[in-house]
């Protein structure tokens, strides 16, 4: 496998600083109460950013052959697909819940 990453060391402390800042932003984003959808998009985006930083620089994926990155990204895409496959089940389930729950609580479900 590629040996070319060995001589050029990325600036690890800079990556560490980025990770620290992203974690701080994540916590800052998570604490206030607001729409779960926006919160989810923000948090997942930030987490993916951190994951990419770790994989690219700490695991030297950026300095390996491109095919390895393609192989590594595959299971993550399959995981996304897995969640999409579960979607029909999730929506069916909450509809059933909504039928059984009293009206006041159903209103609550749609709010968040």
């Amino acid at each position: 496998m590629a040996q070319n990453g060995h001589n050029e060391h990325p600036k690890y402390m800079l990556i560490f600083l980025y990770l620290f800042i992203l974690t701080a932003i994540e916590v800052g984003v998570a604490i206030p109460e607001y729409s779960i959808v926006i919160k989810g998009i923000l948090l997942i985006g930030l987490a993916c950013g951190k994951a990419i930083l770790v994989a690219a620089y700490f695991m030297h994926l950026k300095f390996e052959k491109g095919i390895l990155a393609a192989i590594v990204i595959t299971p993550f895409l399959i995981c996304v697909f897995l969640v999409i496959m579960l979607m029909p089940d999730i929506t069916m389930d909450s509809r059933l819940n909504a039928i059984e729950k009293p009206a006041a609580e159903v209103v609550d479900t749609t709010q968040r």
Partner: protein
Amino acid sequence: MEQATTLDHTEDVYEPSLTPDSLGKLGMWIFLIGDTMSFGALLAAYAALRAGAGVIGWVPPSEILGINLTAGMTFLLICSSVTMVKALESIQKGNVSRMCTFLGLTILGGVIFLGLQAYEWTHLIKHGLTLTDIPEHGLKGGAISGSNLFGPTFYAITGFHGLHVTGGVIYLIVILIHGLRGRYTAEFNHEVEIVGLYWHFVDLIWIMVFTFIYLL
């Protein structure tokens, strides 16, 4: 490729396309890809159960779990990832004692992480979050109604991750012992790189677990 000849245990009857170090690295990547699917399945199940339960049927995790402690744990794992890359950087420059110091710091980070997780678990169990039960009232005092699958999924995911950290600490200790015996040099250090891959992966997974379970 030319590194193969520097290793004493290669019997070059034919020219293998994978050298011993690239083979080890590829093997670790394959293991990590498989592991990604395990964690992916667990987190997808968590997401499905949580979404299926709706807002009323699920405890808001932040009601039960404080964010501060786990934010500290996240920071700790990121720090131990940095010491891990520093260890690899040191041995690539041929500095064995510096590598051993940084490996030791990485192990320390992992052990403290496990200690904090044990503290968190005992705390949660004392307050009634078990595999079958959730606290009547959140730890912060908010009322919570109904029982649900939060406990089992929470313990399964954080436990599986904790198991990986435990394995990583043992793995790192083995590498540290090899390092102290002078096994690694500036030319021969792919084993340090491979343990690094594993350790960074554990960090990467924690970033995801932290986001999905503690923050969302």
